[in-house]
């Protein structure tokens, strides 16, 4: 009896998730009347605006990841090593982006960094790009920080640092050569998650008027029928790929740990 209900709940849940995925895949293949075809994909992939916005978002994601790592790894390391009393506060702050909706944060950017302000970031294209990248870094902060901090917990950073110092290493060397390789898996999983978040992000890019992939998808959705479904399939595959890589990487780490 218990098993019956258990299977029932599981199958109901699976149906709920499989049907939309099936629906969008099915729809994306129906552009040509009467037969299944990859026309929708061909149209999307051939669209120069797709190529431009997708490239833009990938570059933004990579920039966000680099900036996020440079910001989070030294900070998390330093806080654990020298300022442990600060940890609860930092942790609280890094969780704030989950509480404050992205639309509110970007609203603040627009008012704070407009052309007539002390830091007119939105005045130039480069400035706006940088602002958007900072915005993405803020959105990714909870995931990045948590991931890296957990990674640091599992290694004895105090001993590693002292050992490196006794061999004459400077701070940059310690961070780049000792700490980073040891938390690489944590950094990577934070990076993949950041990538998944940035690549389809809509709100910030739309309100800052940047030609990113998210607003492009929305625009296409408002005007076309089949192409959006093709985009949804590709996005899902991309998300799946990123999170699959996280699984792979962390499994790899487990294997490496049990081997030593």
């Amino acid at each position, binding site marked *: 009896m*218990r*098993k019956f*209900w*258990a*299977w029932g*709940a*599981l199958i*109901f*849940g699976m149906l*709920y*998730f499989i*049907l*939309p*995925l099936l*629906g*969008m895949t*099915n*729809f*994306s293949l129906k552009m040509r009347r009467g037969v299944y075809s990859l026309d929708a994909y061909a149209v999307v992939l051939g669209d120069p605006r797709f190529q431009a916005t997708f490239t833009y978002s990938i570059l933004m994601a990579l920039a966000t990841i680099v900036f996020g790592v440079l*910001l989070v790894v*030294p*900070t998390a390391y*330093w806080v654990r090593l020298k*300022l442990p009393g600060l940890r609860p506060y*930092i942790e609280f702050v890094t969780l704030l982006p989950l*509480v*404050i*909706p992205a*639309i*509110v*944060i970007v*609203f*603040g*950017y627009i*008012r*704070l960094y407009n052309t007539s302000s002390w830091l007119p970031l939105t005045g130039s294209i480069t400035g706006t790009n940088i602002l958007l990248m*900072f915005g993405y*870094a*803020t959105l990714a902060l909870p995931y990045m920080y948590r991931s890296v901090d957990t990674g640091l917990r599992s290694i004895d950073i105090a001993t590693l640092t002292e050992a490196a110092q006794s061999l004459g290493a400077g701070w940059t060397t310690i961070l780049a050569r000792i700490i980073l390789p040891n938390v690489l898996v944590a950094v990577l999983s934070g990076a993949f*998650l950041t990538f*998944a978040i940035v690549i*389809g*992000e*809509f*709100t910030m890019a*739309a*309100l800052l008027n940047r030609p990113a992939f998210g607003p492009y998808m*929305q625009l296409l*959705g*408002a005007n076309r029928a089949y192409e*959006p*479904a093709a*985009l*949804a399939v590709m*996005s*899902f595959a991309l998300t*799946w790929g990123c*999170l*699959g890589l996280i*699984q792979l990487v962390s499994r790899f780490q487990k294997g490496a740990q049990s081997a030593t």
Partner: protein
Amino acid sequence: MSSDSSAAPPPARAPFRLPLHWLGAAPFAIFVLLFLIMPTMRIVVGAFQTPDGSFTLDNIRGLFTTSILSAYWISIKISIASALLGCLIGFSVASAVVLGGLPKWIRGPLLTFSGVASNFAGVPLAFAFLATLGPVGLITVFLKSQLGIDLRALGFNILSFWGLTITYLFFQIPLMILIITPALDGLKREWREAAQILGATNAQYWRMVAFPILLPSFLGTLALLFANAFGAVATAIALTGSSLSIVPILLFAQIRGDVLGNPHLGYALAFGMIVVTGIANTIYIWLRARSERWLK
């Protein structure tokens, strides 16, 4: 510090090293201040300011008009509905897998899939549901042509309260599964056995022991899912355009083009969002701390 004065004088450099420690956290502090705290404060302060900068409560008062209140009300309703259903369905699935005696191998794939699905939000999610429950979607067409059920005629519309709720569930349910599975794992076998040997039936065990233990996690996750749905902008816009007047869509339109005719009313609108999600998350953090204390 002063208690050291009787000992040998410390090296002259020592007092100057203290600020250097703090400098290590400075880049992070500056970043967070500039791109998280200050923008948010700007909104909060702006909500209480007139255009020329003096203090006022008019903006907040301005929220209490029928159209804005109803936007909040629909937003809150959708968030509550999708959070409640997400919790219930997610809980059923998680407990089926953890406690229902299903094969062990299901667990790993389920959690991996939940991780992916809970991040599959935004624009593409809306497309997936349009392609499924929209006017020419997979299920709509199937029901109409094969079973003769016309969803439209029954009053169902994907661009509606229920349409949005069902769509949100796609990321709400997996999030619940991800959070509640560890809590279900935390139910010790001994608690069930201790209850049984003391004469409790299975129902009594659930009512008096397991459910109260899970309740904080359950309510906490409810609050988190609520905030999650309340702040979701992209899915709503991609799904409904501007046909459904919920707070995030209203705010989006206001930022784009001052549809309310008063820039500072936009601040108040955003401030209201912070207040609602802030309350929900405070509840979450508080309840979570409580359940962690128990499960120590």
